[in-house]
C-alpha cells in the first residue's frame, strides 16, 4: 500500500484536492443558506421546530437514495451525474448541523446579555453583529466542522454518480480487485478528515471571544 502511494503520490494529491474542493464549495454554499436560516428561526420561535425537523428528515435519507431521486430530476438539465448532484446532496445534508448549531448557539446566549443589549438601544442588526454572532461563532464553527467531516465521507461515496475525489481510488481498487489501492483510498480519506477536523478546531478556538477564553476567575 505504501508502495502504491509512493508510485501514485501525484494523482493522490490531485484527487485529495478535488475531494476537498467539492466539500468546501458545497459547505460554503450550505453555510450561506443554513446560518441565516438558523439566525432567522432563533427570532421566530414558531418556525424553529418545523425547520429543524425538515433538516432532520433530509439527513435520514441515505445518500445513494438521494442520488437516485435527483438523477431523473437533474437529467432534465443534463446534470444527473457529476459534481452537481454531489454538491446539492452535500448542501442538503449539511443543513441540520449548521442550522441546529446556529440556532442553539444564539438561543443559549445569556438572556440578560440580550436584554441589556436591547435595553440600551441596540437595533436587531447591531445586536447580532456586536454581541450575538461573536458569542455564537464558536458553536456555529463547530456545526460547520461536523458538516465538513461528514461531507468528506459522503463525497467518497459520490464517486458512483461521477464525482471526482479520493473515492476514485476505492472505486478503481474494487473494480480491479486491487486491495492496496482500496486501502490507500480509505486511508487518505480518513487522513483528510482528521487533518481538516484538527484545523477547524483551531479556527473554533481562534474565533472564541477573548472574554470567554480567559476562563471564569470570578463565578
Amino acid at each position: 500500500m505504501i508502495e502504491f502511494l509512493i508510485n501514485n503520490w501525484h494523482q493522490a494529491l490531485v484527487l485529495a484536492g478535488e475531494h476537498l474542493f467539492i466539500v468546501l464549495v458545497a459547505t460554503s454554499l450550505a453555510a450561506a443558506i443554513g446560518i441565516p436560516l438558523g439566525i432567522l428561526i432563533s427570532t421566530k420561535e414558531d418556525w424553529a421546530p418545523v425547520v429543524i425537523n425538515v433538516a432532520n428528515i433530509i439527513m435520514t435519507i441515505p445518500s445513494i437514495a438521494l442520488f437516485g431521486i435527483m438523477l431523473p430530476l437533474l437529467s432534465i438539465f443534463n446534470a444527473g451525474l457529476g459534481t452537481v448532484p454531489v454538491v446539492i446532496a452535500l448542501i442538503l445534508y449539511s443543513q441540520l448541523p449548521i442550522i441546529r448549531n446556529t440556532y442553539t448557539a444564539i438561543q443559549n446566549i445569556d438572556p440578560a446579555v440580550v436584554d441589556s443589549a436591547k435595553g440600551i438601544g441596540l437595533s436587531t442588526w447591531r445586536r447580532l453583529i456586536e454581541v450575538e454572532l461573536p458569542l455564537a461563532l464558536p458553536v456555529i464553527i463547530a456545526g460547520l466542522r461536523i458538516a465538513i467531516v461528514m461531507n468528506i465521507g459522503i463525497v467518497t461515496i459520490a464517486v458512483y454518480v461521477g464525482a471526482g475525489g479520493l473515492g476514485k481510488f476505492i472505486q478503481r481498487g474494487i473494480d480491479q480487485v486491487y486491495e492496496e489501492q482500496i486501502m490507500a483510498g480509505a486511508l487518505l480519506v480518513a487522513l483528510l478528515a482528521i487533518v481538516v477536523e484538527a484545523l477547524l478546531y483551531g479556527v473554533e478556538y481562534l474565533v472564541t471571544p477573548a472574554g470567554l477564553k480567559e476562563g471564569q476567575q470570578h463565578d
Partner: protein
Amino acid sequence: MIEYQNVVKEYQDNGALIKAVDDLSLQVESGELVVLLGPSGCGKTTLLRLTNRLEDLTAGQILINGQNILEQDEVKLRQKIGYVIQEIGLFPNKTIAENIGMVPKIIGWSAERIEKRVQELLEMMNLDADLFKDRYPAQLSGGQRQRVGVARALAADPELLLMDEPFGAIDPINRKEIQDQFLHLQDKLQKTIIFVSHDIQEALKMGDKIALINNGQVVQFGTPEEILLEPANDFVQDFVGTERAMKALDLVQVTEIMHEVEYKYKGLAVQDALTWFRKKNNEYLLICNRDQKPLGYVSHQDLVDDYAAEAVIDDYIRDLYTVLHPQDTLKEALNVMVTNEVTTLCVVEEGALVGVVKFADLQDYLSKNYRREHQELKKA
C-alpha cells in the same frame, strides 16, 4: 417628566392571567429620583421594562416629557434612556471600555470622546480605569460588574435613567460609598431617575420620593419622611418595619423636638445671675451676645463662691464646643451628645440661637414613637 397613566401589564402564564402591573398611575418629575420599593414580584422590573418598551403595554399609556412612548422609534427611545438591568448583563465578548462605550459608539461619538468618557465614568464608579478598561466582564467580581453596568447606562449622558437594583450585588461598605457618590453626582446632574430597590434603608437614602408598590399598584407615593411617619396602611407599616422609630432618627430634624430656652446677655451681673439660678432652680444658664449669638453658658457651681459685688459673668462663661444646625437629624444630635458627653445642645441658625435640644427630649420622642409602634402592632 414621566407619566404613567392607568398602566396595565398582563401576562399569560400557562392559561393563568398574571397582572404584573395593575392600573398603575404615577408621575415622576424631571430631575427627581423616585425609588420603586416593594416585595419580590410586585411588578417593579415590569414597570421599568414597559418604560423603555422592552415589554408592550396591555393598557394605559406612558408619556415621557409629554410624548407617548409608543409614538417614538423604540431603538431611539432606548438610546435616550439609560438602563441598568437587574442581572447586569454585560457583553462577555467586549472589554469593560467597549461595554461602557457601546451606546456612544452607535450614536456616533468620536473615539477620543468615548475614551475620555469611559475614563471619567470608571473613576466615578470607584474603579481604576487603567486597571479595568481592557479587562473582560468575566475577570471582574459581581460588584465590580454592577458598577460597570451603571457606568454603561450613564455613558451617553441620558436624561432619564432606569435602574433595576443597581447596587444589589455590591458589598455594604462599597455600596454606601457608591450610593453617596451617586447622590452627589445626581445633585449635579439632576437626572430623572427611577430606581428599583427592595431595601427600605436604600430607598430612604436615595429617594427624593418613594413609590411603595404592591401587587402591581402604588400603595403610597411620597417623600421618605411621609412614608416613614405617615404610613398609608398596614402594608406600608409592615414594610417600613418595626424599627421605624430608630429609622426616624435619620430623617427627623432637630427642629422637630427643639424648644425655646431662656438666656441672658453678656455683661450680666453675677448678683443677677445668682438670683436667676435660685429662682429657676437651674444649674446652667445660656449666655448670648446682642445678636442672639450663643457665647457659652455659666454654671451655678462656678458662681456660688464668688461675692465680688460688681463682678459680671463674662469671666465665667464656658465654651459650648459644639452646636447643632436646624437641618441636623436626631441621629446627629444623639451622636454629638454621646461623643461630647453633653446632654443639652444649642441649635444655631446663621449664628443665632433658635432653640435647644435636650437628651430627655430625644428619649421622649423615641419612646413615644416606640409606643405608637407597639399599639399599632397590637391592633393589627
